[in-house]
């Protein structure tokens, strides 16, 4: 009923969604230690050690320098690019005392207030953010119409 599919085509479609990092196996591999580091903050004693010296705590994990720097900067969009998963990264922002709404808003280029207002008004519309390819095609059509 779901039909046969080519796995490369299946995975390729995920890269066509604007502003979205689907947590694929490739990202799971890239971010394994990053996510396991974040997971360690589930334990109260680890949170205490982490808060006392973040850089030293990170050095206990076989993460890349880019990943460590992105964690210290709380750059969540970059962390997604480096293989982080939001449910694991949630341990980091929860330890910072941020709610999901506060932390998620930092990835959107909006202030918390602007983001909250958008959610209270019904959220972000899917119009225009479904497909990068479709958006490019629409832009192309618009440009052609303009030339005429």
């Amino acid at each position, binding site marked *: 009923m779901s039909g046969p599919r080519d796995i490369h085509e299946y995975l390729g479609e995920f890269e066509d969604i604007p502003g979205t*990092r689907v947590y694929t196996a490739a990202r799971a591999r890239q971010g394994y230690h990053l996510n396991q580091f974040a997971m360690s903050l589930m334990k*109260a004693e680890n949170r205490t050690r982490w808060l006392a010296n973040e850089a030293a705590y990170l050095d206990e994990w076989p993460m890349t320098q880019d990943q460590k720097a992105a964690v210290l900067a709380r750059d969540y969009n970059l962390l997604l690019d480096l293989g982080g998963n939001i449910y694991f990264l949630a341990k980091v922002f929860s330890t910072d005392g941020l709610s999901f709404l506060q932390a998620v808003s930092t*990835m959107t280029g909006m202030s918390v207030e602007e983001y909250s207002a958008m959610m209270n008004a*019904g*959220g972000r519309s*899917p119009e225009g953010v479904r497909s990068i390819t479709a958006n490019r095609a629409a832009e192309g059509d618009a440009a052609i119409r303009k030339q005429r």
Partner: protein
Amino acid sequence: MGRITAGIASSHVPLLGVAADMGKHRDAYFAPIFEGYDWTREWIARPEVKPDVVILVYNDHASAFDMKIIPTFAIGCGERYKPADEGWGPRKVPDVEGHPDLAWHIAQSLILDEFDMTIINEMDVDHGLTVPLTMMYGAPDAWPVKVIPLAVNVVTYPPPSGNRCWALGEAIARAVQSYDQDLNVQIWGTGGMSHQLQGPRAGLINAEWDAMFLDGMVGTTQKLRAIPHIEYLRETGSEGIEMVMWLIMRGALGRETRALHRHYHVPCSNTAIGHIVLEPVDGTVPPSPTLEGNNAAAQAAI
């Protein structure tokens, strides 16, 4: 024999647990959400409705499972489960009591039906499981129902297809029907509806699509089982994929359902809240397609 008497779908946003635990659930922000569950709380307490066991389909959010082990479908066969510490201390809600006898029966039956389940004897349960209990039962001293946790991977791609989830639901129905004690069993599918918690597109909500999905849970239609992953991602945000778990519930209710109650509200934090209560009109599910599922000796051994 066991009887699946109803199915419930509900979002499981962690903020709902926080609101309930802090007594804020009737504040202006939360009241429109919780009021949508008032009907269900009254209904589920009725003697003729009250389930003995709930099969609670949910996903773990980096609590019991981390990246070390990623089971696609896992069933809890333990005696009891404690609320997980998700990074800010465990919720102060009662422990969740399991039903190991029915859970093991279902696990065995599913494996003979060629659903290769992971079996869990010990784990903590996070908001994915405890928030729906709070929404349906409020804040009792002990949960008035036994719970069989059924955890689905919807975090690391690929998650199971909607079609596979529906078929698992049908196999769960066969398993419950072949249980030798009379039990009133409900099945709950949790998570959703549209939401995206990551990236510049975060905050996506698609009320129109969510309404289509709620409509598709009712009646004899099976169109929801053919929705591919990419459609959930494009239309409902990266975390909307949780809705495949609703299809396990729907599959278990059989050929035809009727809606008893329906509720939808935007927003709760980053998420569209959806809730529907269904009962089977015709609970017929297809017979087991497998060798061992049709082997009397094998079936007698479980």
